[in-house]
């Protein structure tokens, strides 16, 4: 897909995020805005998907697992625009009876969601299991996972990291949303991660880095990652992003991790984000 078309989708996704969290005065806009460009590229260009006929087992498709489930607004918006469900359903986000739960879930049958997430640190293990199932099934498609940087403080991530390299799980491409922020503040003030590249390399992963707001770079990095699959090593992409990207007063601060804008702030934010595909 053309870069301009992807940028256009990302803008609409950001508008959806702002409107969804403002409408219910609840949710996590910061990380959602930060991952809008990445998820747009992944779902609209990179992954082989069948949105019109969602099947839980996903045989023959690439699969995506959102480990940092709190950024559900960005995933819901991308899924809707990709055709998994009608975008009008975005208006139900976090409301009673909605399939769009605060954190993604499978129990209400929302197409596109294969695993609940929200309690952090679990998605890499799930991705590894799905990756091993693909190998057993002779299915050569790829597993993608996304993780928050603060999420790497969970020990289970490193259990999974060790397993993946030790067992040559080479059909998985994971990405870290490296915005250096978590809910209590800067990561370096909460619990420093150290040198992420060296850590993942030491665990036996191939590591790539990219700018998470440069669509062309996202596409080229993911293409490179895809070429590296099947070589006996799992692949980690360290993606530099800004929390709150796209809205000037939200950008680069942890204060919007889990706080919605007011109605007035919403109007200011929407003024900075072009409506490209029509609001829900």
């Amino acid at each position, binding site marked *: 897909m053309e870069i301009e078309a992807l940028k256009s989708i990302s803008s609409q996704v950001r508008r959806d995020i702002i409107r969804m969290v403002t409408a219910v005065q609840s949710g996590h806009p910061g990380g959602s805005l930060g991952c809008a460009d990445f998820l747009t590229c992944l779902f609209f260009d990179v992954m082989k998907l069948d949105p019109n006929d969602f099947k*839980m*087992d*996903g*045989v023959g498709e690439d*699969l995506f*697992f959102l480990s940092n489930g709190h950024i559900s607004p960005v995933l819901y918006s991308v899924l809707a625009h990709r055709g998994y469900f009608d975008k009008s359903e975005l208006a139900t986000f976090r409301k009673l009876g909605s399939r769009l739960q605060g954190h993604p*879930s*499978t*129990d209400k049958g929302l197409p596109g969601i*294969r*695993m*609940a*997430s*929200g*309690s952090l*640190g*679990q*998605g*890499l*293990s*799930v*991705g*590894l*299991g*799905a*990756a*091993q*199932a*693909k190998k*057993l*099934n002779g*299915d050569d498609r790829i597993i993608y996972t996304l993780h928050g940087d603060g999420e790497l403080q969970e*020990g*289970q991530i490193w*259990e*999974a990291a*060790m*397993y993946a390299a*030790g*067992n040559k799980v080479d059909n998985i491409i994971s990405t870290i949303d490296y915005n250096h922020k978590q809910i209590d503040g800067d990561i370096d003030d909460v619990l420093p991660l150290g040198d992420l590249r060296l850590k993942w390399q030491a665990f036996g992963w191939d590591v790539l880095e990219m700018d998470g707001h440069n669509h062309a770079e996202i596409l080229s990095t993911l293409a490179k990652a895809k070429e590296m699959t099947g070589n006996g090593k799992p692949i980690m992409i360290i993606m530099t992003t800004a929390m709150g990207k796209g809205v000037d007063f939200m950008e680069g601060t942890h204060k919007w991790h889990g706080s919605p804008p007011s109605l007035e702030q919403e109007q200011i934010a929407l003024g900075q984000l072009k409506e490209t595909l029509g609001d829900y």
Partner: protein
Amino acid sequence: MENIEIIDQKDTRSGFGAGLAELGDTNPNVVGLCADLIGSLKMDAFKAAHPKRFFQTGIAEANMIGMAAGLTIGGKIPFTGTFANFSTGRVYDQIRQSVAYSNKNVKICASHAGLTLGEDGATHQILEDIGLMKMLPNMVVISPCDYNQTKAATIAIADYVGPVYLRFGRPKVPNFTAPDQKFVIGKADMLSEGTDVSIFATGHLVWKAIEAGRALVEKGISAEIINVHTIKPLDEKAVLDSVRKTKCVVTAEEHMMNGGLGDSIAQLLARKLPTPLEMVAVNDTFGQSGKGEELLTKYNINTPNIIAAAEKVIARK
């Protein structure tokens, strides 16, 4: 009761291992995962026969549960194996989110449950696992009584679609149920009909209940012995039918009183048929090192405790 005979002495974990090995040959979707306890869980035969369908995760139980959940996406039927403590308490949140809430077809198979693992002591003697698991929506909880039943249960749960917790143990115990039995999830087994008291037991305590029932006969008491191998869903009809007849109840289990089989039956009876009830279970304490039989006696869950509970509850009628 008089026609129940001990076939041999076997550990229930070996029943699991035998069942899993059989499934390996009959169901190509069954896969095994283990967190560095292959020998203890008796998963060797499955691993040897199907190395590509077996995943050694190392001492990393959280990752094992997450991987099991992921393996279901693609149609696999994962059986995870580790000690009951590490199968439940250590990974509760992983089970809660990635297995139970996500309703994945994972079979969590747990050995060394209860006190009878013996000398390893309280760090390993989980007595809360049934409670932890039965509280989770979507989770089926099974606690078979002997080798043959554990093998049959292992094979049966592969055909059930959804999360299952299968609890078994370490020691060799009387193996007395039929080798060719058909295991029906949620259907309690009537072992011996009686009229004076209903004894509902699960796991290793089922044999103890049979021993107690025989001793009660000597005392002129007719005990009905029912093996409740499925804690959840509870066979409510079997419980209510028996209690309507006997009008008093003893429950027996190698588990904490809070959250166990007795707790489930007490809840049912309180709602539908209030009845005098005595629970033979561990009462709000941790275990300790010792031999299995010594521990059952020390914590008041051995055969004499079931006999005493029966006499006590009959007096309360």
